[in-house]
Structures are given as C-alpha cells and as structure tokens.
C-alpha cells in the first residue's frame, strides 16, 4: 500500500512536467493544427538557460540565491524561452502557414535539430549538473516520503495550469485564441489580428515548457542537450491521451501518463517505460484518437 502511494506521488511529479509541456503542444495544435516537433526542445532550452542563470547567481560568492533569486531566474527564463518560441514561429512556421502538411512537419523537424545542436555547441554535449540541490526533508504521510520540493513542484505546476485556464476562459486574448481555433479566416474578417494571437500562443506554450524544463532540471539534477526529444514525444502522448487540442485534456493526460509510467518503471524496470508510453500512444491513436476528453472535440481549447 505504501509503495503504491509512493509511486503515485512520484508519478504525479513527472506527470506535472508532462502536463506543462503537453499544454504548449496542444495549444499550438488546437490553434493552427501544427505538430510542433520542436516543442520538447524549448523545454530543453528552458533547462539550459535556467542552468546558466542559476550558475551565475550561485557561482563563487555572487548574489545569494534565496527563494527570491530562484523565482526571478524562473520567470526570466520563462520569458526568454517564450520569446525564442515566438521567434521560431515568426521565422520558420509563419511563412508556411498555408503550405501542405508535409512541408511544415519537415520544417518542425528542422527547427528541432537546429535548437538541439545550437544548445550542443553553446553548452557542450556532456551532461550538466544543476547548480542547486533540493533539500530532502519533507513529510511522512501514511508511511510515504513526500519532500517539500515535490509538493512545491506539484503546486507550482497546478498554479501555472490554473493561470492558463483562467487566461483562456476570462481574457479577451483567450477568447481570440478559442475563436481562431474554431475558424481562422472568419476571425481575421472580424478584425482579430490572427498572427499576433498565434505568436502569443507560441509564447505561452514555450514559457510553460521552459518552466517544466527548469523544474525537471532541479528535480533530476542533470540536463543534456538531447533531453527535449524524448519528453516532446511523451508530452505529445499526453496530449493525445487527453484529446489533442483540449487544454484540460492535456493536463489530465500528462498526469495519467506520469502515473502509468511510474508504475511501469516499478513493475517492468526503467528501460521499458518508454515502450509503455509509446504503446499507449499507438493504442490510443488506433482505438480512440479523440482521447479521454474527446467528446468535446467540437470546441478546441
């Protein structure tokens, strides 16, 4: 019983990262029907830029990083990666918005390669150790060990997701996004600046991925320039699991996938967990392509 609870909690933390990355995937897909292969690499960029800032802050007697310092780095990185995401959209995707699917998919692979190897040239190919370590103390609940860091990450992810939900439901920009997802050309006829809203979508998606990137860097302790590839696939799986294009679905899908994976790791061993994830993906695509929350397919986001 305790073991099951422990796995559940570990899975929840990983699932929260998946959800955050999956949100960007699903938003971009919902609004312009593009599978942004480079999305996982924005997560990686977030981890590396956060790593650099944290190294500067904590490195030899610099500014003492308290919670405030980490918070500033966190937000700063999210903004920078958000801007990178917007840049990618502007340079690579916007010219191809009306091009056939195949071209834009190949472009996305190209962007993904470019981001990965820019990072490799910039930061090196080896694994980097994250400069801050998490305290291990935490709570004992029902015989399971939950660290404060885990609680913090779950809360922070929940906060970001709640913020996004409110942004999309309540603000005029969120309304514009939902409208574009329904009918792009009608929106531009009604005076919505479609390109601006798409850019905003990329900004939000990229910065959420960056947030997940920093958190996972802190959580696992090491980062690598290839880390984005596999998480991009996992996040896509999460998005499909929940129903692609559906924001709540992406959150749910991420959590479900994280928990399934934690159980898979426990029972099958770490090397098979990826097979489990892709197996789930293929099964869902074949038997229920609309995902868990697929009934709401009519109105995306």
């Amino acid at each position, binding site marked *: 019983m305790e073991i099951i609870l422990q796995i559940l909690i570990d899975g929840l933390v990983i699932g929260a990262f998946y959800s955050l990355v999956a949100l960007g995937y699903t938003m971009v897909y919902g609004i312009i*029907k*593009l*599978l942004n292969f480079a999305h996982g690499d924005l997560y990686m960029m977030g981890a590396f830029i956060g790593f650099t800032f944290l190294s500067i802050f904590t490195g030899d007697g610099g500014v003492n990083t308290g919670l405030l310092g980490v918070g500033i780095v966190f937000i700063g990185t999210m903004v920078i990666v958000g801007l990178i995401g917007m840049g990618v959209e502007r*340079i*690579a995707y916007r*010219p*191809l918005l*009306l*091009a*056939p*699917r*195949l*071209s*834009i*998919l*190949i*472009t996305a*692979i*190209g*962007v*993904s*390669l*470019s*981001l*990965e*190897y*820019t990072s*490799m*040239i910039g930061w090196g190919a080896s694994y980097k150790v994250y400069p801050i370590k998490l305290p291990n103390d935490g709570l004992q609940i029902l015989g399971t060990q939950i660290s404060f860091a885990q609680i913090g990450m779950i809360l922070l992810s929940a906060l970001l997701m709640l913020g996004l939900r409110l942004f999309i439901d309540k603000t005029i920009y969120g309304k514009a996004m939902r409208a574009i997802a329904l009918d792009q*050309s009608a929106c*531009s*006829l009604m*005076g*919505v*600046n*479609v*390109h*601006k809203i798409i850019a905003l979508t990329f900004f939000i998606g990229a910065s959420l991925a960056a947030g997940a990137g920093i958190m996972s860097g802190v959580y696992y302790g090491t980062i690598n320039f290839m880390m984005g*590839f*596999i998480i991009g*696939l996992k996040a*896509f*799986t999460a998005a*499909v699991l929940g129903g692609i294009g559906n924001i709540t679905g992406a959150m749910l899908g991420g959590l479900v996938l994280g928990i399934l994976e934690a159980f898979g790791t426990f029972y099958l061993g770490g*090397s*098979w967990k*990826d*097979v489990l994830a*892709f*197996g789930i*993906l*293929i099964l869902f*695509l*074949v038997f229920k*392509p609309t995902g868990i929350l697929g009934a709401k397919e009519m109105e995306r986001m």
Partner: protein
Amino acid sequence: MKKYKNQTLLLLIIALFILPFFLNSYWLDVLTLVLFYVVLTQGLNIVVGYTGLLDLGYAAFFAVGAYTTAILMTTFHWSFWLTLPVAFLFAGIAGVIIGTPTLRLRSDYLAIVTLGFGEIVKILATNLEITGSASGIYGIPRPAIGSYIMSTQKDFYYLILIVAILSVIAVYRLGRSRIGRAWIYIREDEDAAEAMGINRIRLKLLSYASGAVIGSIAGSIFAVKMSAIAPLSFSFLQSVMILLAVVLGGLGSIPGVVIGAVLVIVLPELLRGADDWRYLIFGVSLVAMMIFRPQGIWPSKNGTEDAADMDENEKSNDPNQSMSV
C-alpha cells in the same frame, strides 16, 4: 534525347565500377556509405515520395534487416544469402505492422506513430537478450560466394553498388507501374483515388512493405560489412538523415533522391572541421529548404503536391495577410 540520357547513365555506371581502382580507402568508404544511403533513400522514396506518407522511423527497417542477418548468422550459423529472404519477410511484416494502425491517421499523427515505432524498435534492440543489448552483436561472419569469401573493402563496395543499381531500377519501374501510379494518386488526393476504385488500404500497406524490404537489404549488407552492429546506428537521427536526403533531393524524384544521398554523406565529410555544426547546418537547411524550395533540388516531373500547392499559396498569401488588422 532519350538515347543520349541512356548513354550518360551507362557511362556513370561504368565509372562507378572502375572508380575503386583510383580511390584511396577513405574515399572508397565514403562512397560505400553513399551507396548505402542511395538504397535507403530509394526505399523511403516509395513511402514518402510516391505515397506521401511521412515516415519518421525508417531506420527501424534498416535495423530489422541488420539484426535478422546478424542473429541468424552468429547464433544459427546460416549463410548470408539465406538470411536475406528471412530479413525481407520480417521487414515486410514490420512494414505491415506499422502500416496497419496508421491507415486511419492523417499525416501528422502518422509521423508521430512512425517515430514512436522507430523508438520502440531501438529500445527493444537495446534491451533484449537476443540482440546483444546495448553493446550489440559483433563477430558477424563474412559472406561467401562459392568458396570465395568476401572480405575486402572493394567486395562490399561492389555488392552494395549492385544492390543500389537494382533498387534504383526497381523503384523507377515501380513508380511507373500501375501500382506506382496508384500510390501517386493516393498522395495527390486520397478520397478521389478511392472513388476511382483504388484500394487505398492494400496499396498503403504495400507501400510500407516495399519500402521496408528495400531498407532491410541495406541493413543486411550493413551488418556483414561492419561485422558488428549496435542500436546506436538505428536512432531517430539516422531516420532524419535519410528523410533529409529524400527531401533535399526532391520527393518522388529518383535522380533527385540519389543526389540527396550523395549530399547528405559527402557534405559532412567535406565539413570535417565543423563536425559539431553539421546537424545544426542540416536543421537550418531543412527549414530554409521548406521555405524557399520545398520541391527539392531535382524535383520529379509529375510534380509533387507540395510544389503545386506552394505556387498557389504564394499568390494567395498577400491578400490574406493584409486582411488581419
């Protein structure tokens, strides 16, 4: 004109046959690698170029061929030539397995499923006992013709050269056959093709299977040439490089795809000093290619969907952009 073209081709083939006598072993190795890529790109050309199904896990079929041959030769001591039909069979089955769930999917879902499938094959190869886990299989014996044992660089060069020529001819003939034309119809408009009486499911599966079989030949030869294989050779990057060669050269165009294979192998060799930069350069060139010349270096004559669509878009692009205020 046609006669002239045939003569050029014949000269090229003769040149390829006598070339090994003038090259040092380094460039002979590069040339052999190019020929491996020619075979692989021909196979992928059937799937992506003719049928228009984006496959991001093509290296998996390369792996199926290589592992089938390697396992049969090392564990069961089969002759190399006998392993080939088995490898074809397995690759064909793998093609159908990956093809079946993707039949109902649209291009972008399909790309992800093939990607996931490619990763699964790689993870299986890394974790199974029979594939030698992460260290792979080594000590694969040399193939023999009669009593002659193929062991020198030149032997394998000629072997892959013959296979490359045969696969180019086969893919060329396929593209102009009834089946090939049906594939192209499916690429251009699936619904219309079906309405015209084309069995979409059967042909798509056939496309996957034939692409897979061609990929597996390259894999089998790769295994005996290197005499050792490891999961690392069949990664996602390998799939992307093969796709890049096809896209760079021109989807569905045979001379284009051959040129793409040459470029993808030879350019990095020329850029040896800039080794770290090579994938970055490839990534950027993929993006630039799609924006400025989506039809590739040597586009096929019957015009891919992309080329036609792009022209239309360029016309309609401006008014659309000025619409948003």
